[in-house]
């Protein structure tokens, strides 16, 4: 059954207005397309072009806009939505990968050049998503930053523009967030010394 033409737009508008159940309804409508986008992105693993994912999601955005003269023209909401979906897709991919490979033999391709310790399809990606869920309870804004910057592949400038903060703020917040996430996943010696 094809979703009605205006359905996605309508649900995005509801989600924007704070209806969190709209996200659940939206997912199955947009997921297949984004999954194709991500599959192409993942196939590029040997030479991952992070900007490619952004470009393709941008294309999806334009298509949705064309579908119906959108009442929502809120880039921020669309992109945070797409970034969340991209995270889900990459997590599903990592789960499938782990199930098939039992933890070994994947190409070590980082999620982002700025996050070299998390590889696409790797167990660290699953650890990262658990840590992000914990972070979400403390600071949802930082999770959005990570999703936009690392899962969707936005530049720091694009992330700043979408979140309506300065690039310096994004850099500063991500510096702390990356350290926090790294420590969450690798507790290390100092954390136990107290």
């Amino acid at each position, binding site marked *: 059954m094809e979703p009605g033409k205006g359905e996605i737009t309508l649900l995005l508008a509801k989600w924007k207005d704070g209806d969190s159940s709209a996200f659940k309804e939206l997912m199955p409508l947009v997921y297949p397309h984004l999954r194709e986008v991500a599959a192409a992105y993942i196939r590029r693993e040997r030479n991952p072009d992070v900007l490619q994912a952004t470009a393709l999601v941008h294309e999806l955005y334009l298509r949705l806009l064309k579908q119906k003269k959108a009442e929502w023209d809120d880039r921020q909401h669309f992109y945070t939505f797409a970034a969340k979906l991209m995270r889900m897709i990459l997590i599903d991919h990592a789960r499938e990968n782990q199930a098939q490979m039992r933890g070994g033999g994947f190409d070590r391709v980082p999620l982002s050049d700025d996050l070299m310790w998390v590889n696409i399809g790797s167990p660290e990606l699953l650890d990262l998503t658990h840590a992000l869920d914990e972070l979400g309870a*403390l*600071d949802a804004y930082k999770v959005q930053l990570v999703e936009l910057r690392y899962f969707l592949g936005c530049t720091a400038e694009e992330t700043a523009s979408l979140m309506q903060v300065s690039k310096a703020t994004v850099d500063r917040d991500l*510096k702390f967030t*990356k350290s926090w996430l*790294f420590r969450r996943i690798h507790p290390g010696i*100092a*954390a136990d010394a107290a």
Partner: protein
Amino acid sequence: MMNQTKERFLQIEAIFHEALAAPAEARTELIETRCHGDRELAAEVLSLLEACAEMSPFRS
């Protein structure tokens, strides 16, 4: 690191940034002063600063 509260999280973040902005040799003292004898808090900040330093060689 277990179940941080929001308040604790904000505290850690603020001291982390202050420490990063300070010269390296002044960091330990700054952290001690800002943590008011809360050793767990100081250890947490130090461990995050270590994590930050550990990651930096890989940054492009």
